[in-house]
């Protein structure tokens, strides 16, 4: 199992995240890329700020990858990188990449990874609009 997790203030490149999975046995890689949207409902977002509890967030992301390996044995490698700090519209907030020999199990596992991050990773998002700002959660 090849695992890489990171909370970073730098821009996130999907190519660099995928490179963490490199292994000649992995033929299928699926990724989820979360990008800052300019519109949420009817409100125009100006920018976002992400904040994390970095030590616990990385531990949590590592735990999520362990859950995935246990549940989807075909998944052989996982990399999750989440950016924090101020992000502009169109910038990448998170990249999740999973690799397997074949793609069969990767989709369910990827779906699971996103759900679990939103559920348990200590990462917060504050939206800034023209007329205010608020912390946002999915719950």
């Amino acid at each position, binding site marked *: 199992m090849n695992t890489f997790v990171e909370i970073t203030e730098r821009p996130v490149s999907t190519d660099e995240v995928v490179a963490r999975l490199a292994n000649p046995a992995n033929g299928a890689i699926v990724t989820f890329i979360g990008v800052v949207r300019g519109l949420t409902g009817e409100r125009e977002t100006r920018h976002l700020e992400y904040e994390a509890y970095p030590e616990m*967030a990385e531990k949590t992301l590592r735990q999520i990858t362990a859950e995935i390996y246990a549940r989807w044995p075909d998944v052989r490698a996982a990399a999750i990188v989440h950016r924090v700090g101020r992000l502009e519209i169109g910038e990448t907030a998170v990249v999740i990449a999973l690799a397997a020999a074949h793609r069969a199990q990767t989709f369910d596992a990827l779906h699971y990874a996103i759900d679990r991050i939103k559920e348990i990773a200590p*990462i*917060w998002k504050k939206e800034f609009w023209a007329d205010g700002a608020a912390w946002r*959660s999915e719950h």
Partner: protein
Amino acid sequence: MRVNVRFFAVSREIAGMAQQPHTLPEGATLQDLQAQLFADYPALAAQRVRFAVNLTYAPLTSPLHEGDEIACIPPVGGG
């Protein structure tokens, strides 16, 4: 005993700081610390905060120990 409390996101804004040492009687639980925090920062009680002890989510019945790092975790929204 002394523990360190870390605040994040809306809890950091309510507390007005990122971390704060707290002194608690021996045998205190997370529930005791929560009561102290809610007394100090009433606005915190309106948030659905969870707590983590030493990087792991913990129930309010958890006993605390000297040197523990307690995090005040408002609803998360990563991804």
